[in-house]
């Protein structure tokens, strides 16, 4: 089961950290704070919907460098940036790199909470999608290699007759393999099977 979401916040100022945590808990969110990018990176992240509230000005690694570092480590956590002064070029770069929001301190509490909610929803959706794809891949991997071959040809739009000719078997054999594969993939229809295979391959391409 998926656990409750967590908001991580990184800021070098202890007052800001504790006030952020206090504010987030008042709306029922679980929050965990860190004083630097490094201490956050050392944390083993739980498999729950989460987001990162990050000050642009950090000692050591800057917020933007940190954003790049996370991408490099394939840690796909949505980020809400906080900044001491509205720096437009910096915010543009952050947003382009996939930041959820870029808030200028001091910010309206509702703006932060909205951004955090958007970030958590996005992360939740991503996780659900990933979970689904993982399940589909597990099913696909349970097929025999001949069944996998038949499925890829079916998805490519080939008729049973054509597949049999290609594989050098009887059409009836292809039919049996195809229905067995549908069953293992838990696909109700050909359309559903196609969508499933697309999900697996699109994620494969994306990663």
């Amino acid at each position, binding site marked *: 089961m998926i656990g409750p979401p967590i908001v991580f916040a990184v800021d070098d100022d202890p*007052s800001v950290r504790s006030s952020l945590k206090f*504010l987030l808990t*008042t709306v029922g969110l679980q929050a965990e704070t860190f004083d630097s990018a490094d201490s956050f990176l050392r944390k083993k992240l739980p498999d729950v919907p989460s987001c990162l509230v990050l000050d642009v000005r950090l000692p050591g690694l800057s917020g933007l460098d940190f954003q790049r570092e996370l991408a490099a480590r394939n840690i796909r956590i949505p980020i809400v940036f906080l900044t*001491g*002064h509205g720096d437009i070029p910096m915010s543009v770069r952050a947003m382009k790199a996939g930041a959820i929001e870029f808030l200028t301190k*001091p*910010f309206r*509490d509702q703006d932060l909470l909205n951004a955090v909610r958007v970030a958590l929803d996005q992360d939740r959706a991503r996780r659900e999608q990933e979970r689904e794809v993982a399940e589909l891949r597990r099913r696909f991997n349970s097929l025999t290699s001949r069944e996998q071959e038949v499925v890829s040809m079916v998805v490519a739009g080939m008729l049973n007759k054509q597949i049999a000719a290609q594989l050098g078997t009887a059409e009836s054999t292809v039919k049996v393999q195809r229905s067995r594969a549908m069953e293992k993939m838990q696909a109700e229809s050909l359309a559903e099977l196609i969508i499933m295979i697309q999900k697996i391959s699109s994620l494969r391409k994306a990663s």
Partner: protein
Amino acid sequence: MSSASTSPANIPLKDSIPEAGASLESILCTEELQRRPLRPPDYEKENCALVKLVSALADSPSTIFQTLAETIQAITQCDSAGLSLLTRDGKTPDACGKRFYWPAIAGMWNPHVGGGTPRNFGPCGDVLDQNRTLLFRHFERRYPYLMPVIPAAEECLLVPFYVAGQAVGTIWAIMHSDRRKFDAEDDRVMASLGKFASSAYQSLIHIEDLKFQVSEREKAEAEVRELARGLEAKIRRLVAANVVGIVMGNLEGAITEANDAFLHMVQYDREDLASGRVRWTDLTPAEWRGRDERAIADLKARGSFQPFEKEYFRKDGSRVPILLGGALFEGNGNEGAAFVIDLTEQKRAQEMLQEAQQTLYTTQVELARVSRLTTMGELAASIAHEVNQPLTAVTNNANACLRLLADRHLDHEVLRRAFEEIVADATRASAVIARIRAFIKKAPAEKSELDINEVIQQVLVLAGHELQKKRILVECQLTKTLPLVLADRVQLQQVLLNLIMNGIEAMTAVTDRPHVLWVQSQADESGDVLVAVRDAGIGLGSEVDRLFTPFFTTKASGTGMGLPISRSLVESHGGRLWATANSPHGAAFWFTLPVAGGSPS
């Protein structure tokens, strides 16, 4: 020991006086000449000999002494005859010399040519001392150094001869045996031959002189030849080294010779040169012809011209900047040589230097401007960050409390902690502001007595590039003999630069009137120094009142700190800074500074 083996080298040549032997009187027998039986004069023989002598004098003056010696021998029928000449260094004739030299001897003593005797201790010296003919008998008895000169002289008749009244030498006849004795006739003949000796001597001197002149001339010519050879080699090396372009040609435009450096410069090849296609008149762009004509005029007048910079066309029509200098060949009014130096690199370097200087200057001005802005900008950013952190915490905590209150979640302990944090963060924010204020106050001013006009000029130089770039005309109305002000130079510059930059920026958008910036200095009615910076810009409009409010700005890149800081700087000097509208357009900024020492100097 034979006579032939007695070489001149064996004869002592010392100038010092050797040990004297017999007395002078004991070796002289001059008076006997008159007592001896007279030999009849043989005039025919004498005349014949004299004619021979005269023609020898005319034909072969270099051997005249030898001829003279032979003549003496022939006429007097003696065994040896010769000449002694007074010399400076043993050879060069000189009436004041210290030695007699024997340039020519006929007869048995001939091998002794080149020998001689000291001036002050010898028979010739005695003759000159007594200034008359003397007859010696065995003079080696008194002058022992003559002993090795063999065969020994039985008798020696010595006659002085003169040039311009001065005795310069003797002629002599010697008998080595008593086969014959000299008599009065010999005395007469010798005396007359002495006159020939005189002319011979003179002609010899003349010849020697000529010889000397000839040899000197030859030496000089050799030196010139050597110099020319050296020079030629040097020129050849210079031409071949191709360090500079060398061309030879004529005034009409032909180039007959050129080295590779020159050809490379104008990108022609040897073939072009050989064909006569390369003419300096064609290489010269039209606008340089006038300058060339001046150079040609100089060449004609003085044979050379001062090097000058010009351009040549390359073969492809592009231009190469060069330095040209040249001269005409001596003795030839039309041909000459010139050197050509490629100035491309130099020009490029010069341009780069100028560019670099311009860039440096621009950078300096820009730096002054930017540092003025960034110092304030950074200060503002740092203030923002320092104050933002506690403000963020306060806002977060207060918002959280409001949410808890709205939810009627009244955990007193939680609220108390939150409010404590709010108070702590608010205190922290005010502490930050107090720290900044203290920091600003602390910046020490270094005040000195300054001439305001000098500071104005400095700042105008500093802003010069910006003024030039924006095509702004500066009108200075500076009152001379203003009293000095006590101020921090840098701060004063900062105020002036700020006002001038504001004026420049205020005029950038104006297109319908000239961009003029007036800078004035004068004394005001209370005796303070008053400075005005006025512009023809867009003016102040309704914003006059807010000009000096911190962070108020009408400019896209402004901080809104320039005027407030300028005002606080002027006020820290005891002066005032204010703004008015300028008539008919633009804005005027005024500031006063009290005079150093409190009263006008």
